[in-house]
């Protein structure tokens, strides 16, 4: 993977139907030279874990606006681990209350972004997160 492109799965777990943010991020990552696998709306944790495995991604980006993050994200983390993909970095964006962000990071999420997060920052932090292990 060291000589390859950074591969990112961008997914929207849960039931909210608003994917503008996910698309903006996908586009920004593309423009930063990454390969983004975009899976669309209403993904179950099972679908996300399966896609992450088949696509052998380095990063999973999750966009959640529904408030169900504390239910969905642990499940996704668990399934990635069960598949042997504990090294995959998880980035979360959307509407995440401030008090939940540290709890998500404790579970293993690398970074949490709210509305207005500059895309350049997201790009840099993804690159930084992948560097030491490569």
């Amino acid at each position, binding site marked *: *993977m060291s000589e390859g*492109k950074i*591969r990112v799965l961008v997914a929207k777990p849960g039931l909210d139907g608003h994917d503008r943010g996910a698309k903006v991020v996908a*586009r920004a990552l*593309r423009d*930063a*030279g990454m390969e983004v696998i975009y899976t669309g709306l209403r993904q179950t944790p*099972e679908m996300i874990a399966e896609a992450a495995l088949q696509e052998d991604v380095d990063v999973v980006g999750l966009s959640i606006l529904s408030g169900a993050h504390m239910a969905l994200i642990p499940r996704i983390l668990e399934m990635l681990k069960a598949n042997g993909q504990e090294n995959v970095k998880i980035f979360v964006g959307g509407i995440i209350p401030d008090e939940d962000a540290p709890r998500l990071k404790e579970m293993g999420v690398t970074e949490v972004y709210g509305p207005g997060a500059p895309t350049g920052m997201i790009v840099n932090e993804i690159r930084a997160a992948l560097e030491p292990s490569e």
Partner: protein
Amino acid sequence: MGKSPAESILSGELMVLARLLTQVENGSPAGRLTLDELFPHTGKAHLVGVTGAPGTGKSSLVNQIALQYRKPVSANPKRVAIVAVDPSSPFTGGAVLGDRVRMRDLAGDPGVFIRSMASRGSLGGLAQATAAMVQAFDAAGFDVILIETVGAGQTEVDIARLAHTTLVVESPGMGDEIQAIKAGILEIADILVINKADLPGVENAELALRGMLGLSHPVEKVFRHHGQAMDLPASEPANSSVWVPPIQRTIATDGTGVGELVASIDQHAQHLRHSGDWIRRDRARLEGELEALLTETLVAQFRLSVPDVHYEEVVNQLVQRTLSPWEAVKVLLNGEA
């Protein structure tokens, strides 16, 4: 020491397969070694190429074809691998690969493996990486491998050359009969699909395609009247030496016509096996791969033997127009023009 990656893949470990696909896409030496080990296990899968202009519904159709192969109606559903290629940006090298969006019906089925792939610029490189990925899936025991290409163009012709059966997907309103008789993408079709067959203009699209087929198979035309599109393949005996590409109408969003399409695909595979074309195509494909690899390796080796200074000098002379490209090659190979 545990199992080698190749052994893990043969025993069905999907994570190891996924990792190998990344390695071959990146052209890593480790991936190449694993492929070497897997190669004796290849040659069993039916490779189906799906190509056509952007927006004709290739991804949705691939989704439906895979679903059809997975239906329990046939006693042993086939394992299906999908390689879905989308374009890379020529400027940043990045890509948004969106084919999975149309393939969500296949989620959760362990008999289906979808892999998205960015075209990453170089034409020859893409065809090579695709070939290597297909080999990996073949060895891993997938019965049908669907290769979905980017929109239509020369690359697609190359990728189609990989496949046993090539589907060219059109949709109504894509152009008149002049488009249809232009050389290129339509010629490579083993099966023509008119998707979005619920849209107006489907009759004209079919007429144009049928006219094109008539021009390219004048002998066959004698035996056929204007008539029903759908029974072309059915009226074709399996041992006939000439395969006339059938025209299939489909509506990929609801699956209409997909059963007939898959029957056509299977029929084409049978035709290839009976006529001996299967072996001939296999041979031509492997020979092509060998030639491409040989060319690449020889060029790389040769470049190592030429000092960079000398090479730069020759390029300078090209720029100054004191050498033509042909003379430059002679200078590099023989030392003089």
